[in-house]
Structures are given as C-alpha cells and as structure tokens.
C-alpha cells in the first residue's frame, strides 16, 4: 500500500478518535460526530484513488451499491422516531456485521486467505460477523414487534446451540487443516471453501437461536453486545486486509460495546451471563401477589393542587412508560408550567431507564428539555431529601426499593435505584398497579401517606395535571 493511502487511513483513525473524545459533552458531541464522518470520507476517497478495477462493471457496481445503501440509510435515519432508536441501532449494527462477514467470505472464495493467520482471522470475521448480522435482525424484528416478540423458547435450546457451536469449531479446524479433517472423517466433499460456507450458515443460525429466547426489554444489552462483536469482527478484518483504519476503528468500537454492555448489566445489578441465559426468567414477571392492598389513589386535580401549593422543588423520574405513551411533549409542557410557577424542576434519570442506555435523555431533549436539567442517578440521589414531590411517569423498576431488600431475591435485587422514597411526596403516573419489566411489585405503591397513585395513560395524565394546575 502506498504511503499516502496508509497515512490517509491513519488520519481517518485519528479523526474517529478525536470524534469520540468530543462525545464527552453535549456542546462538543455533534462536532465530534461530524469529525468522525469526515474521517470516514477521507478513508473512502483514499480507497477510491488507489483501486484499479478488474472489470468495467466494477465502478458502476460500487457507485450504485453505495448510492442505494446511502439512500436507504439516510431515509430510515431521518424517518425513525426517537423511541425507535434501539431498533435503528440494531439494524445498522446488523448490516455492518453482514458486510464484514461477506467481505471475509469473498477473501476465502478468492483464495486470498493462504497464511494460517489470514485464515484464522478470516474465520473469526465470518463467524462473528454473520452471528451479529442474524442476531441483530432478530433483535430488530423483536423491538419493531414484527415477529418473535416476547421470548421464544423450545426444548433443548441450549443443547442445540452447543451442538451448532461445536460443529462451527470443527469446521473451522477443518478449514485451517486444509480439509484434512474432513478427509479423515470420510467427508471429502467438505473442502475448505465448502466448510467456510457451512460455517457462515451455521453462524447465521446460531445468531438467531441466541437472540430469540431473550425478552424484548433485554434487547439493548444484546444489541450492545452484538455491537461489541461487530467491532471486534471489524478489527479482525483489519488484520486480514492489513488496514489500520479498520483495525483501530474496530477495536475502539469493540471497547465501546464491551463497556456499555458491562455498564448496563451492572446497572441492572445482575451479571451478563444471567441476563443472556435467564433473560426469560426476568421477562416472565416474577411474584405478583394479587391480594388487594390499599393504595392512596389520587386524581389529576389532587396531584395538581399538591404540586401548586405544597411543592417547591420537584423532581421528575421518567421511565419506559413515558416512551411507550409518547408523553415527552406533555412532560415538557408540565415542566414549563411548573417553572413559570417559580418552582424548581429537575429530571432524575436512571442509567437503564427506558429501553436503552441514555435513551431517556434523547427522548426528553427531543421534547425540548435542556440537558442541564437532566441529572444522572449519582447526582440526583442526594437531592431527594430536600425534594417536595417526585413525579414518576411510567417507571417502576428504577425506583423500586425492593431492589435494596436483602430478604427476597428478585430480578432487580442489587440493582442501584433512584431513592425517591426519601422525598416528601411520591406521585406515580401509570396505568395500573402492574409492575415493570422486571415484574417485581413495588412497596412504595402501598405507602399511603407518602405516595399518590394517579392511574392513567402517561400522555393523557400529564396533560390533565397541567390542565388542573392552570385552573387552580
């Protein structure tokens, strides 16, 4: 590779790095993204300049392919509602993985993976890439509620997965051994190339089987795990193609996915393994003891008058339900209203509130909430003591004190929560007493002096509260 191209790729990598460095503050983040995109352009241009095509067809194919992909990508990116981010990320991650797998596949087909190093990294790329492709597709269709919603299980699932995985390993060994193993086993038709195809298919299947049993709400973890995979696959193909932009970029993406996955699982208070292999347990809504307990049910008017007369400092805790109900707009209006009453309003955002890390922040900023009002768990928890009212909208798990209760071991045991129970008053805005995703009942519901339960759809409810405030 010429020095110029090499340096161009290096510059691209440096721009990726700088871009991510700028993601540290909302002020600089956007420019960071632009820088990274710019790096990408440099890498592409550099590639164009050095490729001399084998057939006249090549350029049209390349150009056409990029054009089609770009249009699909841009349109869907422009159209997707912010609530649909998890799907979107899953989709893009999937196509990325697919691209990587196909590239590696063709490396084998063109017989360019002679050295064992090339073969090994190539195999890794095929396996991880295709796995993360099919996995992401399933994740997407789950989140989009196209198919497989909920957790699909069938007997001996784990066993089947294990077998497939094993066969992948054997086939890979066969590839590295130049087909010798197949010969020995008397399966001469399994030459290396065929084996690679088989591996490709098997990995696709494995990806599907790996994701279908996992419940919709655990998808974000799966997605960021797959994101990490794709990153590593990219890095691996950086080895194969001896391209440092790929190598460096891929590695960093891998790190990103790994860290986010780790953060999530620790914010969920349960180890990754548990999430992946017992995601079902969590989804299948735990102990819902239906003996009637008394709650202090309140109306929009009651909530409104309390807020108006007794609350000076208000903290709002948004949850998944807010997103489902599309209630960001009314949420923002309520905030404006309370502030115009001279009250102090802050948002307390749990790391896994919603269905994706940082998802709530995006949803609220979209509605118009300035980001200096959005507080992380660590920052808001100390403030609940001097808070007069906490309005919890479509959230449960992230404020459920049961998580801290040593006695019983629930899906959220050990998960750090927003300590809303320290506030003077707690106002729940949700449709029923039904618990959240983790299916753990919330003792706060039944604390009748502290808690007001306002049963309603989040969107409607917030509008009514605002209405009530105005008419006070």
């Amino acid at each position: 590779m010429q020095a110029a191209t090499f340096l161009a790729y290096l510059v691209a990598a440096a721009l990726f790095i700088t871009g991510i460095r700028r993601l540290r503050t909302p002020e600089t983040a956007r420019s960071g993204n632009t820088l990274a995109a710019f790096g990408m352009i440099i890498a592409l241009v550099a590639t164009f300049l050095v490729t001399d095509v084998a057939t006249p067809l090549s350029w049209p194919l390349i150009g056409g392919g990029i054009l089609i992909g770009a249009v699909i990508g841009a349109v869907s990116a422009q159209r997707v509602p912010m609530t649909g981010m998890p799907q979107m990320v899953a989709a893009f991650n999937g196509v990325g993985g697919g691209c990587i797998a196909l590239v590696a596949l063709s490396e084998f087909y063109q017989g360019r993976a002679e050295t064992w190093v090339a073969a090994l990294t190539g195999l890794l790329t095929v396996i991880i890439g295709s796995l993360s492709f099919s996995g992401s597709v399933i994740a997407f269709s789950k989140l989009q509620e196209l198919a497989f919603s909920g957790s699909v299980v069938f007997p001996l699932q784990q066993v089947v997965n294990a077998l497939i995985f094993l066969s992948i390993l054997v086939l890979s060994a066969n590839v590295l051994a130049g087909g010798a193993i197949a010969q020995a086993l008397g399966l001469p038709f399994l030459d290396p190339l065929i084996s690679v195809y088989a591996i490709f298919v098997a990995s696709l299947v494995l990806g599907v089987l790996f994701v279908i049993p996992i419940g919709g709400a655990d998808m974000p973890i799966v997605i960021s795990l797959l994101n990490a995979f794709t990153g590593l696959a990219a890095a691996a193909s950086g080895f194969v193609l001896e391209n440092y932009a790929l190598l460096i970029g891929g590695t960093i993406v891998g790190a990103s996915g790994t860290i986010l996955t780790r953060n999530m699982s620790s914010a969920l208070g349960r180890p990754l393994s548990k999430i992946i292999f017992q995601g079902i347990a969590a989804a299948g809504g735990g102990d819902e003891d239906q003996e009637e307990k008394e709650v202090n049910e309140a109306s929009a008017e009651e909530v409104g008058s309390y807020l108006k007369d007794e609350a000076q400092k208000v903290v709002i805790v948004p949850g998944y339900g807010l997103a489902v109900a599309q209630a960001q707009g009314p949420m923002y209006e309520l905030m404006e209203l309370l502030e115009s009453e001279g009250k102090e309003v802050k948002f307390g955002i749990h790391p896994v509130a919603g269905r994706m890390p940082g998802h709530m922040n995006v949803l609220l900023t979209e509605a118009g909430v300035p980001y200096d009002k959005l507080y992380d768990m660590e920052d808001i928890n100390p403030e609940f003591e001097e808070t007069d009212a906490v309005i919890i909208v479509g959230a449960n798990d992230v404020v459920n004190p049961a998580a801290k209760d040593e006695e019983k071991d629930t899906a959220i045991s050990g998960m750090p929560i927003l300590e809303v129970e320290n506030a003077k008053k707690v106002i729940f805005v949700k449709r029923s007493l039904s618990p959240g995703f983790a299916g753990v009942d919330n003792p706060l519901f039944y604390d009748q002096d502290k808690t007001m339960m306002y049963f309603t759809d989040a969107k409607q409810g917030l509008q009514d509260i605002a209405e009530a405030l105005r008419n006070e």
Partner: protein
Amino acid sequence: MEQLLTQIAIFVIAAFLGWELISRVPNMLHTPLMSATNAIHGIVLVGAIIVIATASDAFTLTIGFIAVVFGAMNVVGGFWVTNRMLGMFRPPKPRVMKRKG
C-alpha cells in the same frame, strides 16, 4: 510475521485507548455513542469496495455488491441518525420566571 506482530501491538494500544475514551462518555450521551461507534465500524465498507474492485466473477461481484450496500447503509445511516440525535441537545436556556396569578 513482523506484520502480524505490529498489528497485535496496534490492537493492544488501541484497546487501551478505546477503554479510556469510552469510559469518559457520560450516561447522557450513551445512545448517540452507541450509534456513532456503530457507524464507525462501517469503515469495513472500504473492504467491500476492494472486494468488488478485485473481483471479475459474478459470484464475488454479487457478494461484494451486497456488502457495499450494507456497508453504505451502516455508515451513512449511523452518522446521520447520530447527527440528528445530537442536534436535539439544546444548550442550557435562561430560566423562564414569569409568575402568573
């Protein structure tokens, strides 16, 4: 061999660097971070282009074409949606303070 070793070296340092970089991104920006990094691994599009360029048989060209489409989707879509998200993060605005009876 040399080649492989240097690549390993770069991989190791890049891994350390990645860890440092990502662990300093605040929760607030984790969704954009996810989609941005997502876009970055679309750099494999470069590989896909090379595949088409070096191929002359229908099979490879088809594979390459699909790969290019996928890669372009990943890159363009990823950066685009991230840009859209980050565009919504408004700077702190002066507090509204008009009381009303």
